[in-house]
């Protein structure tokens, strides 16, 4: 990445040699990523992040095809960048159906089929969920979309670089991904747009990215993201297996050590390194901070952390009661985590939970 901050500083849109040298590097990067994702290079747009990719995909398709129909289907557990984009489109006159999930965190396909109308133009369903890690039946949804001639957008931010997903074979029309989810730089992302699909521009400006996403390309980050994706693909299967084993070990042990703890989401259909646990009678932020004091960084879907009174919409959609949903913690295991670190969490977490519970009016043991 460094040479593209310093030596190769040219603007890729300029026709001078320093600019064109940088242009070449961007196009090489596009080729490499397209090759890994098994798509055509002209089907890949570089964006600034997963959120931007989701916005361009959903708003772009909805507005470009509004004469064909004004109905969109998504699920209740999507990332806010999808849910809030859909809500924004509702204000423009679009109608959105939010499909529920089952108690394992998988989108209900029957409800999805029932929601299809003559004016449905787009289905947007994520591949892996960012909070509970469940992996959705993309193949089946792709087939449903194809049969009904509906565009299919997949938010694959959590899975690209971690799990194989054949874009073409699964009838995916648009697919979002983000660099930092596979150890690339933060603030860079990509969007696959199947050839032939029209997109109305979300940003207006110049001609970059084949006139679909104007703005100067983030060259150094594109280079970094490309290298990161190459490295991820080199040992994806092996790494995935390792993370899954670590995660499963963590879950097997934690249920033994902490009473009144729920493991969220399907046991099998999920991301290898994600573990979402709901610890009853505690509030997530208290656990998060205590773990942070011990050098362990986790994420909490608790209300107080986000500033609203509602706990995670994903955990609630699973059917976890509101009073327990506040005690949800997400552990993410990645490439650099070791068994020793998992053992350390298993050692420090139970006394933390005990301490927090001893302060709780709901814990009388």
């Amino acid at each position, binding site marked *: 990445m460094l040479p593209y901050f310093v030596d190769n500083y040219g603007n890729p849109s300029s026709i001078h040699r320093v600019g064109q040298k940088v242009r070449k590097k961007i196009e090489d990067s596009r080729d490499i990523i397209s090759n890994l994702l098994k798509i055509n290079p002209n089907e890949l747009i570089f964006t600034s992040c997963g959120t931007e990719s989701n916005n361009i995909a959903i708003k772009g398709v909805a507005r470009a095809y509004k004469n064909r129909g004004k109905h969109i289907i998504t699920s209740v557990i999507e990332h806010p960048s999808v849910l809030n984009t859909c809500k924004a489109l509702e204000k423009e006159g679009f109608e959105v159906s939010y499909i529920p999930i089952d108690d394992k965190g998988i989108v209900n396909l029957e409800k999805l089929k029932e929601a299809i109308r003559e004016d449905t133009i787009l289905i947007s369903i994520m591949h892996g969920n960012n909070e509970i890690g469940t992996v959705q039946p993309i193949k089946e949804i792709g087939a449903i979309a194809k049969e009904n001639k509906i565009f299919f957008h997949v938010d694959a931010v959590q899975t690209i670089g971690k799990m194989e997903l054949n874009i073409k074979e699964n009838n995916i029309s648009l697919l979002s991904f983000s660099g930092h989810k596979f150890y690339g730089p933060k603030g860079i992302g990509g969007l696959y747009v199947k050839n032939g699909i029209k997109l109305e521009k979300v940003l207006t400006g110049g001609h970059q990215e084949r006139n679909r996403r104007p703005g100067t390309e983030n060259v150094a980050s594109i280079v970094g993201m490309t290298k990161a994706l190459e490295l991820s693909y080199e040992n994806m299967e092996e790494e995935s297996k390792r993370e899954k084993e670590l995660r499963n070990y963590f879950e097997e042990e934690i249920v033994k050590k902490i009473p009144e703890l729920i493991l969220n989401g399907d046991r099998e259909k999920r991301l290898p390194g994600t573990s979402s646990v709901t610890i009853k*009678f*505690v*509030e*997530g*932020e*208290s656990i998060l*901070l*205590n773990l942070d*004091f011990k050098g362990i960084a986790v994420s909490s879907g*608790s*209300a*107080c*952390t986000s*500033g609203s*009174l509602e*706990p995670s919409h994903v955990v609630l959609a699973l059917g976890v009661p*509101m*009073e327990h949903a*506040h005690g949800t913690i997400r552990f993410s295991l990645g490439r650099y985590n070791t068994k020793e670190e998992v053992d350390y969490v298993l050692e420090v977490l139970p006394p933390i939970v005990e301490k927090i519970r*001893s*302060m*709780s*009016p*709901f814990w009388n043991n």
Partner: protein
Amino acid sequence: MYSEKVIDHFSNPRNVGKIENPDGYGKVGNAACGDVMEIFLKIEEDKIKDVKFRTFGCAAAIATSSMSTEMILNKPVEEALKLTNKAVAEALDGLPAKKMHCSVLAEEGIQSAIEDYMSKKDKS
């Protein structure tokens, strides 16, 4: 995000626990909203001789519970009744704006426990 005082009171909360047969008891908040505070008072001659709390909630909720109990201990009930959430937050060197609602819990908890004490006193 939190001041050192908030972290201190959250990590080492003062006056945690229960008082058997309290002179005043209050429970405020709602588990569904993520915050519940329970407060127990031991009162002699209208003075708070002991106070204990149990709180389910975030760091701000626990820290404000802890700080507010310290602020009313050994104070006359009339004075304790005047304790505001703003004063508790100030004593903690401030709270993030989105956490101010947690300090309201402490104010309401103490008021509720004192009201319980006063209503019992009126009856006797």
